[in-house]
């Protein structure tokens, strides 16, 4: 990517979040998009690039009345929106379009007009994983964790700490689904889902969506909101089957994507003021901290347990409460991006004082793919 030439000029989530039984998934896309266009002072006529995942960008573009000259339907799971940001930056730099709208929506809880989750029995996963009882993320994404725990002496209490700390952040966020404080014991006494994972170590299932609008940094100064610049981006993918992940203690996709984003941005870890790591389950922030290089291997859980990521800590992490406490409609990457943008605009409910650089790091599928975006609120 060419350096420091793109900015986010519109960002919004759906008007409501949580349970939205009276709205279809398609309308959730539109609701988020209309809110983001209002935020940017634009209408559909001003948008000439469209991207979404899961649902078709054709469907979203037509529903909103957008005639794009650039279309991206990259759909690699919950981090797809990080990849869209990366692709959009390249497209705008190349002159393929000027103003890109990226949307996510999922009626994850109410399932109004939502896609069905199914795997073809002739697919690789359908042949070599599904027959053994995997059904959904709680029985797939969790499988590597025990190997990690044994290798590094990490305990169930350590995993519980991740959920406890994120609830501390959620308590400051009026839009968070769960805001009441929890203890390690609360987490360890919550319902067993797939040992060693308890209910409070697993993400929520909610309805909602979000949208971003990107344009060139040059144009960004003319928009109503404070521009949030993109310093660097990364993406990668590894395997469609969790069983075929090369190393159960580390994500190759995380490492490749993170390294690329840091390299493009030309920043050091000490420069990062705020961090979002897609937390579908409690072990994800631990893998993320290590694979992005914030912690040495095996030290991510202790880093969280020791309080470095909690309110007041030196590396504020998942400040909206994360997928564990804020919301998770199915493809959470969009909400991580939204929180990074809020932090860079200085308007987050749990604002990190004077934050200048924020990273949003996403996972797609079950360690299948990854995308990383480095943001800054300082003009390049």
């Amino acid at each position, binding site marked *: 990517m060419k350096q420091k030439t793109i900015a986010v000029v519109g960002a919004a989530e759906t008007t409501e979040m949580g349970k939205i039984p009276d709205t279809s998934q398609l309308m959730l896309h539109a609701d988020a998009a209309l809110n983001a266009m209002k935020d940017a002072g634009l209408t559909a006529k001003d948008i000439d690039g469209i991207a979404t995942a899961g649902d078709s960008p054709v469907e979203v573009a037509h529903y909103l009345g957008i005639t794009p000259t650039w279309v991206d339907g990259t759909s690699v799971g919950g981090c797809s929106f990080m990849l869209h940001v990366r692709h959009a930056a390249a497209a705008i730099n190349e002159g393929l379009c000027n103003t890109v709208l990226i949307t996510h929506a999922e009626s994850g809880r109410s399932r109004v007009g939502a896609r069905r989750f199914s795997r*073809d*029995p*002739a697919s*690789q996963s*359908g*042949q*070599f*994983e*599904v*027959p*053994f*009882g*995997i*059904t959904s993320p*709680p*029985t797939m994404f*969790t*499988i*590597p*964790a*025990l*190997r990690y725990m*044994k290798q590094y002496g990490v305990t169930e209490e350590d995993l519980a700490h991740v959920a406890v700390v994120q609830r501390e952040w959620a308590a400051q966020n009026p839009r968070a689904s769960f805001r009441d404080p929890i203890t390690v014991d609360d987490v360890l006494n919550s*319902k*067993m*889902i*797939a*040992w*060693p*994972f308890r209910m409070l170590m697993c993400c929520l299932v909610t309805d909602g969506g979000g949208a971003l609008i990107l344009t060139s940094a040059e144009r960004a100064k003319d928009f109503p909101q404070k521009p949030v610049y993109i310093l660097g981006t990364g993406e990668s993918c590894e395997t469609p*089957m*969790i*069983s*075929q992940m090369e190393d*159960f203690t580390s994500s190759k996709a995380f490492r490749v994507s993170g390294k690329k984003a840091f390299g493009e941005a030309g920043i050091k870890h000490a420069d990062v003021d705020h961090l979002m790591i897609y937390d579908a389950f409690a072990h994800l922030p631990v893998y993320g901290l290590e694979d992005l290089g914030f912690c040495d291997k095996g030290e991510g859980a202790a880093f969280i347990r020791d309080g470095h990521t909690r309110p007041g800590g030196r590396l504020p992490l998942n400040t909206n409460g994360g997928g564990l406490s804020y919301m998770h409609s199915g493809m959470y990457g969009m909400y991580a991006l939204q929180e990074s943008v809020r932090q860079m605009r200085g308007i987050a409910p749990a604002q990190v004082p004077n934050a200048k650089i924020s990273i949003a790091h996403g996972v797609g599928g079950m360690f299948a793919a990854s995308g990383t975006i480095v943001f800054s609120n300082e003009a390049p």
Partner: protein
Amino acid sequence: MADYNRPLPTATPETRHFWEGTQNGELRLQRCTACKESYFPPRPFCPVCGSRAVEVYKASGKATLYSYVINHRPRPDFGTEPHSIAVVTLAEGPRMMTNIVDCPQTPEALALDMPLEVTFEKASDEISLPKFRPAKKA
């Protein structure tokens, strides 16, 4: 087997040898004749060097337990008790998903790195699934 109502695999031309193997009580892997790498899942070329010169062979059936969860979410087709969903490392190198059977489905009974051996569970006339059980002590 008559009441087997779990999802079953559908073989493709590239995986048929594997499912024919399990039906005949054999765990079949593939190996590159150029670089000697064993690999899984099946495909008619080597994922390491790209060579199409590959062969099917009968694996030892020995493995060790790499990682797992014990599912407590309702899966009526898997019975009423919690059950393991595991990934094992085959003696030949590749990893595969399976269930650990013939032992209690508890953290105490399922120790990482424990030695395992393959056993085949007949699910239909066409499909037998490779499962793993604690290795018998020699």
